[in-house]
């Protein structure tokens, strides 16, 4: 732009740029919102889930359990399976450890291996001890656990939200 005089051509250039900018913003914001909308939805914690009766769960052994959570994702209901292991340390109804079977590395499912006395992950050879602690392999943290309660009929119920365990 030369001096104080704005030429017709420069004015047209600036105006085109300004209008273009406004249009870009007016289109860009809705489009970004449109694309990321499902990522902004909050994941609600599910209702507590009964996983068995105490009398059916042996003491001193890892007892596997699983549950399904069905969520509405978009126009479909998606059922996902989760699972874990219940360890009753003694007869007392509050002396229970409930570990998640989801490997803390990349979410494969671990299995209890009696002879190794550890949870083994088939994907990248992780090894977790009986308290869920990492013994070997790539996982960054111990297996997660679930909160639980036992009612007067002896039904064991968990809150289906995996909690981080202390290292």
């Amino acid at each position, binding site marked *: 732009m030369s001096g104080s005089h704005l030429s017709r051509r420069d004015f047209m250039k600036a105006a085109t740029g300004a209008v273009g900018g406004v249009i870009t913003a007016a289109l860009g914001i809705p489009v970004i*919102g*449109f694309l990321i909308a499902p990522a902004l939805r909050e994941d609600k914690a599910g209702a507590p889930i009964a996983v068995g009766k105490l009398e059916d769960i042996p003491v001193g052994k890892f007892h596997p359990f699983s549950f399904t959570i069905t969520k509405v994702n978009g126009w*479909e209901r998606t059922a996902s399976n989760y699972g874990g292991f219940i360890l009753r340390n003694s007869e007392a109804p509050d002396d229970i450890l409930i570990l998640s079977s989801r490997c803390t590395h990349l979410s494969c499912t671990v299995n209890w291996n009696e002879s190794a006395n550890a949870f083994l992950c088939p994907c990248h050879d992780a090894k977790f001890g009986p308290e869920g602690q990492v013994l070997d392999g790539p996982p960054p943290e111990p297996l997660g656990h679930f909160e639980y309660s036992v009612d007067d009929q002896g039904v064991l119920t968990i809150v289906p939200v995996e909690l981080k365990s202390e290292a």
Partner: protein
Amino acid sequence: MWQKLYTWLDERLGLGDMYANLLDRPEPKGNWWNTLGSASLFLFILQGATGIFLTVYYTPSPDHAYDSITYIMNDVAFGWLIRGIHHWGASLMVLVVFIHMVRVFVTASYKYPRELTWLIGVGLLLLTLGMGFTGYLLPWHQMAYWATTVGTQIAGSVPFLGEFILKALRGGPDLSALTLQRFFSAHIWMLPALLAGLIGVHLYLIIRHGESHFPDEED
């Protein structure tokens, strides 16, 4: 820095030449009716962009097509806007392309050397109508279903070949999942690809021949 980058690109891509040939042409002396072709191009790009975004959620299956569109309308941020633009843009595009053609006819711009530009334009109009026809089925609601039943039935009334045409359009004797899927494929891949290609040739011819002389008293 920018100057260097520009020079680097210009040497390889010939940006300056492109600018001179495509944009720095003599200022048109025509009138506003001559902007309808550019308006058609803009609408094509708008339909393309909004259409691509719709495919993020839209599902071409009889079980989910309608649900996925309800989801776009009610649960996706600005879904109503993107779909609304695509929905109304479709009708507007047919209208604008048609008026563009009427203008070319009225100003007799289809004469030598522009006959090919006109013929390709006819193809563009038919393809745009094809986009409307195939897109209309996609929501898979009653209106879409019966409109396509009727539309394909009409195509089926062609002598001798009718039965075959009807089956080829529907992917069988009845409207089914196959119909929805092939209409979707035509709507998002085949017809847009043909449109884009023909638009390219159309525009090349327009730049090559320049704007036609606007008829005056002597014509």
